[in-house]
């Protein structure tokens, strides 16, 4: 992997972030005047004007944009009028909880999704394969919140073995993580299976057999590294969906993370919070994509090569 490859990806990541920031700016300006949205309808015009001046909304758009971008660069994401604190602080204190949930769901996905996919591919056409694929279709088609409610009904209401909401122990984490991870794991399992099946029929797998390489070594040493790119792609891509799903799943389990904050901020029209969370999500996605790109270059030497190296 060359430095140019990494720098190129970094530049692209930066441009993506700038685009996201600009997009948020435009959408917020298009969604109407925030002052009139936040203040009661009968607020005197002079007060409205004072607020507009205070937030710089009376200035020309290019200047507003420049101030807004400069503010973000300085870590100023606006003020949450509901909490009367900087929006960034409000959002950041929710991040660890969301991270805890998200990473658990991700780990579950990788173990169940990739493990299930490998199992299904190796046992292709058997009942193991069929069962795994049936499970993935179920996981795919069931909406997150519905699965969450089903789990609450079963484990919290009927059998009373898991708490239905809140945080504090690993038992609180089980149902939200399973809910969040299921559809994700299903997608990853399907990709792993098809990608592995494709690789298993490649000529170099036959070479490995002709060389007398044992089965496990053939799968772990030859098949999986080659099947890795589609798997990493789908894991990375679906991470966006995971963040989106968290917005739905967190309120179901009263999990006080970023997702729940976003839902309540939208309801209260706390625009600074909404804006901060949207940018945080965009930032996360950009970082994830960057990592995925780097992983590509690491998994497959044919990617990330500058033409000059090919002559070696």
């Amino acid at each position, binding site marked *: 992997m060359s430095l140019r490859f990494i720098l190129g990806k970094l530049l692209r990541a930066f441009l993506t972030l700038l685009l996201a920031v600009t997009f948020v700016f435009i959408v917020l300006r298009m969604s109407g005047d925030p002052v009139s949205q936040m203040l009661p309808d009968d607020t005197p015009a002079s007060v409205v004007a004072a607020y507009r001046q205070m937030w710089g909304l009376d200035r020309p758009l290019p200047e507003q944009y420049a101030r807004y971008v400069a503010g973000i660069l300085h870590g100023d994401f606006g003020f949450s009028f509901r909490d009367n604190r900087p929006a960034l602080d409000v959002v950041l204190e929710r991040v660890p909880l969301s991270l805890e949930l998200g990473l658990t769901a991700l780990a579950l996905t990788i173990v169940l999704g990739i493990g299930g996919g490998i199992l299904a591919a190796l046992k292709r056409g058997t009942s193991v394969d069929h069962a795994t694929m049936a499970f993935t279709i179920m996981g795919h088609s069931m909406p997150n919140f519905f699965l969450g409610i089903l789990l609450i009904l079963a484990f919290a209401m009927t059998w009373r073995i898991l708490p239905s909401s809140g945080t504090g122990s690993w038992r609180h984490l089980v149902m939200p993580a399973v809910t969040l991870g299921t559809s994700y794991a299903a997608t990853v399992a399907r990709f792993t299976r098809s990608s592995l099946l494709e690789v298993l029929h490649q*000529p*170099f797998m036959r*070479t*490995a057999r*002709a*060389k*007398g390489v044992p089965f496990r070594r053939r799968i772990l*040493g030859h098949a999986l590294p080659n099947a890795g790119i589609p798997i990493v792609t789908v894991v990375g891509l679906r991470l966006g969906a995971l963040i989106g799903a968290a917005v739905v799943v967190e309120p179901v389990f009263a999990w006080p993370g970023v997702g729940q904050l976003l839902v309540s901020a939208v309801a209260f029209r706390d625009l600074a919070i909404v804006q901060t969370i949207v940018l945080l999500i965009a930032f996360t996605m950009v970082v994830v994509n960057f990592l995925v790109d780097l992983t590509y270059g690491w*998994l497959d030497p044919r990617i990330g090569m500058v033409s000059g190296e*090919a002559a070696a």
Partner: protein
Amino acid sequence: MTAAVLTKVGVGSAGALPVEPTIDPARAPAATPVLAIEGLTVGTGAVDLVIDVSFEVAAGETLCLVGESGCGKSLTCLAAMGLLAEPVRRKSGSVRLGATELTSLDDRRLRDIRGRDMAMIFQDPVASLNPVQRVGRQVAEALVVHEGIAMRSAMRRAVELLGRVGIARPNERANAYPHQLSGGMCQRVMIAMALACRPKVIVADEATTALDVTTQAQILALMKTLQDETGTAMIFVTHDLSVVAEIADRVAVMYSGRIVETGPVDALFDHPAHPYTRGLMDCRLHALSAAGGRLAAIGGTVPRPSARPVGCAFRPRCPRAEERCEMVPELKPFAGSQSAACHFPGSAR
């Protein structure tokens, strides 16, 4: 450095096979067969793709399997290696390596033999190498698997092997990925991989077909040299008669799943006994003048395995065919050293 490797790869030094090859005087007049295939039938469902194929190769000998695409050459090789993939399977017949009957071995025992006593080189060298693994490591893996040595020392031997197959600067090239090497270079890597554990038999399935002519000549020369040094038996599959002329000691011509003629290469080229062999010879470019300026071709096409004609499969395309040919001809000795499966072997067109 090279000299050290040379002695290491000598025939006698293999010694890894538990059973020494036994001599069967009735079978092999010239030398002890290293690999003997007998009555091999391969097929899928009710369709037979390889029918009753028998041949053997001795140490240091090269047997060329010749025939058109789809005649069963590759399947014969894969069956010999125990590498057939479902739904194609071996229906009957035996494959003996020395005194070991391979068809009765379980997959674990067979795995120990593959890559150590028998190695295979494939048609498309670039696709046959793992694209995301450095080539040196791929060569070294055979040593790690079969000799139980650590990857580090295996890598040193891999670099030696790469140098031995004519790769310049093997130290650097060992760190290359297949896509950074040319097709010919990749085939050299495959050869190095095949040689790694000093096999008794190398099966080369169209090993030079995907290469351009000059590279092909280099690879053939290399394989010949290495074979002279190591005394390895070689089965070389090809459809290219100029390759046969270059490398073969003996030839087995296959048509529609059967061996139709076999014999020493000179005899086969000088006086082909089977009409199909004769047809193949006439198709060569330098037969042009003899045919009066027009390149000869065998009329018709190879029958599909599921729709072979009754009797001799070549009958519909044979200029010499008669009623008798509706009976499958046996492979019978002809003119001393040759055998042909034809009712009218050696007769004029």
